[in-house]
């Protein structure tokens, strides 16, 4: 138990700078033409901007970590406990309910486990950080108004509450414009997708595989 292996990965990409390029180009066009009436060219550039905005819509990064080496699991029936809110979030949203619902949906959709109310495996969930953020603030200044969610999931085996695995994901939308409105609605989904991915990779490995 004392030699724990850890894996760290980063996924995702930032779209903020991609958006700035066509916008800068648009501004240059205005300056060169001296007016704002060159509609065909403007229209084309607007299309470019829209495409860039669409592509940059998922400006999300994830940092994930698996802290236990793989332990063979014979059972695949799991009970999912409600997430605990450890954030001290004082807003009106029920982030505990939201996160619990999304985790259950993701686990059911993953086909990794059969979900039941009584099961030999238990998944516990902690919401460690949540910030709603603001798309307007991100647009004004990248990094300001960041939307963040950090969740941790532990897999236990009953009876005896043997800890099998710990999975943690931190997702955030730091940059982007108004197209990132609603990031606070999908940030848990992104984080739990990452958790499911970690569990899948963890279960796909044989025992005694060292991770770096």
């Amino acid at each position: 138990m004392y030699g724990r292996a850890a894996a760290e990965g980063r996924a995702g990409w930032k779209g903020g700078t991609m958006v700035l390029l066509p916008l800068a180009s648009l501004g240059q066009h205005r300056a060169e033409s001296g007016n704002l009436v060159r509609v065909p060219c403007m229209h084309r550039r607007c299309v470019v901007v829209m495409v860039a905005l669409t592509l940059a819509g998922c400006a999300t990064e994830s940092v994930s970590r698996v802290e236990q080496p793989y332990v063979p699991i014979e059972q695949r029936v799991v009970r999912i406990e409600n997430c605990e809110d450890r954030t001290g979030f004082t807003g009106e949203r029920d982030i505990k309910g939201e996160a619990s619902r999304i985790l259950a949906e993701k686990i059911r959709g993953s086909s990794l486990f059969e979900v039941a109310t009584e099961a030999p495996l238990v998944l516990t969930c902690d919401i460690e950080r949540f910030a709603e953020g603001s798309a307007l603030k991100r647009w004004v200044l990248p990094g300001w108004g960041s939307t963040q969610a950090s969740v941790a999931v532990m897999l236990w085996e009953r009876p005896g509450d043997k800890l099998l695995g710990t999975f943690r994901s931190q997702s955030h939308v730091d940059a982007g414009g108004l197209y990132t409105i609603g990031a606070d609605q999908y940030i848990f989904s992104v984080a739990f997708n990452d958790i499911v991915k970690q569990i899948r990779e963890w279960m796909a490995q044989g025992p005694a595989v060292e991770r770096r």
Partner: protein
Amino acid sequence: MLTRAAVAWLLTAVLAAGCAAPSASTGAFTQTGRIESELERGVSTKRDVQRVLGTPKGSGGAVLPTDPRGREIWYYEDIKIANMRQDAEGYLHADIGQRILLVFFLDGRFDGFMWFTGGGAVESK
């Protein structure tokens, strides 16, 4: 006129952003008051500790002096950096607070804990 208005609005927003001193946190462990009331040495399990304190940030093990039996250790941290600001001379100021909690397990059961805290104002250039 539209451009001027937009620039004025942007400057206002940036200035407003400057008013809020940036801060950062690793995420707190908030239920330390429940350790002594809800966890029982030699009885409580890891699951009980997770219920009270949440998922640990790290784990490992150690053999402590005077007892050859190895103990498993869960690690919790809470580091906060607040009121980050730069003065006119370019010095960066911030208030840093840190809490570390170690929870010990013997044969899978809760066997005690240790915490320490520190912090203060830092300055760097």
